[in-house]
């Protein structure tokens, strides 16, 4: 019977791999039907083959591949800067009660300022070129990471803090052996959110700072010229890249956290 259950488990795993695709397929069918039966004004909803054709030309004769790589480069650079700064500051705030009391409230207040409100200031301070964009993306990635890391460390069960007191852990050991692993779920929440925001900011930076190659500019072009096929290509690419980011983060997370619970 134990062996049977294992078999069932394996089958269930296969099914699990299938399910996400089912949802995507359903949405695709819905789209096809909406086009076919004209549920939506055809000017607003391009057909899948029009979008596919546009994507093909954009990738072969157009600049889309380069646009994507430029957006990704900015996104990753900015996120790396923002997330690592956020992680370090978050840890500092989590460990040092004094740092927390001095910096914490201001940080929370700053976080309440909408991201896009920073565009004019960052643009004037860093210029509208790559420096300004990356600063903006870094800021976006920084905020959720710093907050979640900080709260994650703060929320560590007191029992674990005591334990590291008793084992006389150095700061480094405390971070490595207790705080980081203990705060890891929270930190991952922060990184997830940070990735999402940094991706939003990448698009935003390409729309609100000056235009250089990137997906943001292409989306803007699509909506100005009312080219719905290009708009859909852009949206699909945004979704795919975001999905890739999130699933990689999730994969990493489950690998790291897997063995903790029964």
């Amino acid at each position, binding site marked *: 019977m134990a062996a049977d259950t294992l078999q069932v488990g394996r089958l269930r795993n296969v099914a699990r791999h299938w399910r996400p695709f089912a949802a995507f397929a359903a949405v695709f069918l819905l789209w096809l039907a909406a086009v076919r039966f004209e549920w939506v004004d055809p000017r607003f909803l391009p057909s899948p083959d029009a979008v596919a054709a546009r994507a093909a030309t954009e990738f072969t004769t157009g600049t889309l591949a380069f646009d994507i790589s430029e957006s990704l480069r900015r996104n990753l650079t900015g996120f790396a800067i923002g997330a690592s700064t956020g992680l370090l500051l978050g840890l500092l705030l989590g460990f040092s009660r004094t740092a927390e009391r001095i910096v914490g409230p201001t940080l929370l207040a700053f976080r*309440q300022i909408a991201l896009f409100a920073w565009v004019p200031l960052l643009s004037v301070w860093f210029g509208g070129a790559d420096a300004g964009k990356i600063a903006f993306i870094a800021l976006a990635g920084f905020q959720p990471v710093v907050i979640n890391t900080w709260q994650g460390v703060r929320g560590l069960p007191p029992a674990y803090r005591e334990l590291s007191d008793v084992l006389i852990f150095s700061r480094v050991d405390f971070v490595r052996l207790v705080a980081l692993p203990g705060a890891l779920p929270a930190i991952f929440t922060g990184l997830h959110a940070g990735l999402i925001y940094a991706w939003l900011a990448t698009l935003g930076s390409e729309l609100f700072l000056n235009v250089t190659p990137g997906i943001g500019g292409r989306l803007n072009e699509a909506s100005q010229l009312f080219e719905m096929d290009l708009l859909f290509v852009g949206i699909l690419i945004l979704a795919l890249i975001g999905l890739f980011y999130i699933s990689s983060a999730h994969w990493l997370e489950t690998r790291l956290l897997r063995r903790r619970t029964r």
Partner: protein
Amino acid sequence: MTLTTSANRPVEQRLTNSSGVLADVAYAMTLPLVLLLAWEFSARLGWLPEQILPAPKVVWATIVELWRDGSLIDHTFVSLRRVAVGFTIGALSGLLAGALLGLLPGIRAFVWPIFTAVAQVNTLAWVPLLVLFVGIDEELKYVCIGWSTAIPVTLATTRSIANVSPNLLELGRVFNFTPLQWMSAIVLPAALPSMFTGLREGLAAAWQSLVIVELFASFEGLGYLMIWGRQLFQLELVIAAMLVIAAIGVSLNAILEHLERFVQPWNSEALHGR
């Protein structure tokens, strides 16, 4: 003899409630004051030209002026209304969706990837499309703000529920709890801290989205004020709007935090002990 050595633990413990709050406020004000002083000095010494960073007194004068002519209140009210409606819609649907996804791993397996994919396409990209379907009036603002609120709330709720300790979940099975009891006695309290984090994220996202959507299609609101300030290259207007947004954000956040403490007495009580 009570021990009051140089060790800071007992001192900290004794600084409960009233005096503790005072000390906290003193600490909290340090950094803003330092920043303000640095800002004022650099303005006085002319390190930063006015176009790069207007002096504090210019920003203050702008706030006073906006206050006098009533436009600050008008813009604030409009934004608050939009955020209130959008956030409520978004938070409720996010909590609901998150609860469903967190509780039903079967559905989660179907929907999660497509949800994450769609969540990656942010307000900015949706707006041109959304305008076609919901128009450009208040509905557009509510939908955008609600959407951006719902995403972090859903994410956090799903994760917090999916991460509730299996040991505690088991307990509910042992007591044969009805789904409702199971939710109220185990899942909810266990997930509450992260859910509140999600709500706070959602609130922040609501403000983000407000600015974006007020840029796209609005004549009023704090976000509009900010965009207007940028358009006219009046950074003092931008900073004034930022300050007001931050002040409101801090207050709303404080309310959420208070609520959080209120619904989790076990945390605050236990903290007093240990």
